[in-house]
């Protein structure tokens, strides 16, 4: 019960420690202490979505979680997600389809899109719109973003189908 506390958490796969003021939100901690400036801050009251990161596997607003609350959690930012290659296809689709211009909304948009695709492998365009409706983009007009997410969904489904065919062939081959 202090105004400052020591915390430890996993940040993009690495164990880290920090001394934080209770008043500090997680977005500021990640930017100021750890230099993860891919955590963009727009409104700091949950509305714009630019700060959206992943905590314990779920998309959350970094501006609405206190840094002290990250104690013991697994935190992933766009830097970690990029390095792991987990969303490389999604990032590639954003690039190819011009789904970013200034890029301010992009890290949050990608985290939101990644969660949508993990939960709904083939979302309708309406569902994609609803999901990204909580992330402001002042540049693209959203169409290219919706296209990029829909395209990634199709590519992944095709890849899964191919993998399934390959897997069903292999055991038979092996059994011969």
């Amino acid at each position: 019960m202090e105004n400052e506390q020591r915390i430890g958490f996993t940040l993009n796969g690495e164990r880290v420690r920090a001394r934080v003021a209770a008043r500090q939100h997680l977005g500021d901690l990640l930017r100021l202490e750890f230099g993860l400036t891919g955590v963009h801050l727009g409104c700091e009251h949950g509305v714009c979505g630019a700060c959206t990161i992943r905590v314990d596997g779920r998309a959350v607003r970094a501006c609405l979680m206190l840094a002290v609350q990250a104690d013991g959690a697994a935190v992933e930012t766009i830097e970690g997600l990029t390095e792991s290659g987990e969303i490389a296809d999604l990032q590639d689709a954003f690039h190819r389809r011009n789904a970013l211009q200034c890029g301010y909304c992009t890290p949050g948009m990608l985290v939101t899109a990644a969660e949508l695709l993990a939960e709904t492998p083939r979302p309708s365009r309406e569902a994609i719109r609803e999901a990204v409706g909580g992330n402001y983009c002042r540049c693209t007009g959203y169409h290219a973003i919706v296209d990029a997410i829909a395209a990634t969904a199709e590519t992944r489904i095709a890849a899964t189908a191919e993998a399934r065919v390959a897997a069903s062939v292999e055991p038979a081959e092996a059994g011969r």
Partner: protein
Amino acid sequence: MKAPDVAYARPRTLDEALALLAEHGEAAQPLAGGQSLVTSLNMRLAAPGLLVDLNGLPELTGIAEAGGVIRIGAMTRHRDLAASPLVAERLPLIAAAVPHIAHPAIRNRGTIGGSVALADPAAELPACCLALRASFVIRGLTGERRVAADDFFLGLFETAIGPGEILVAIEIPVPGADAVSGFDELARRHGDYALVGLAAQGRRDGVGLGDLRLVFFGVGDRPVLAGNAAAAVAAGGVKAAQDALAADIDPADDVAVRGATRRHLARVLLGRVLGRMTGEA
């Protein structure tokens, strides 16, 4: 903006949390999902001395059915309501309402307890709880009490939860096999707080609807039970209910829309929801 200086505690048990609230009095405030409270801190609309984080309390989690009642722990997140097979099957009203609350990342953190404790008059879950005749389980240092939904919402951002108390769970009587519900809202953008919304719960009664609870949100200082409209359905159908609604709600003008517009939208919404519930649509 940045939050003001504040102290923080993450108690491990409910008793510990209650003791902290008692010790620090008015200065202490429970922190649930933080999706409204941290917003207020960042905007410096709130400046508590101590935040008592409820996120580590096992007593406040879980959704379970027992003895004709579904008990939803206060720290159940909007996301967990959406994912619960029990909620989908037994409480379709809540299942229908949750996707309208904010956006995925906010639903991942925000809780039902936080939503009803905040009592935003335009929020979905308080209206659903009122329509479903929920009962609120409130714990203080001296013990536990239950408050019926009709007595829980006292005004703008005001509830029956007293100083030093924590909302532990929401208990909802399981609707019967003949239950029927309806939900809809009008917002400028999906996920925004509603301009006008309606949560309706009743049961099929021959060709009509019985025990009907029509709860409007976004039209007053708290969720509003439209008793005249509900009574009129039985007597004269949807049109009669729409006409009777004028006696139930009296929305004021505000920065978003005029009261008259809200009144009109409420009427439209009532027609839609009742139409769907009675199959007249």
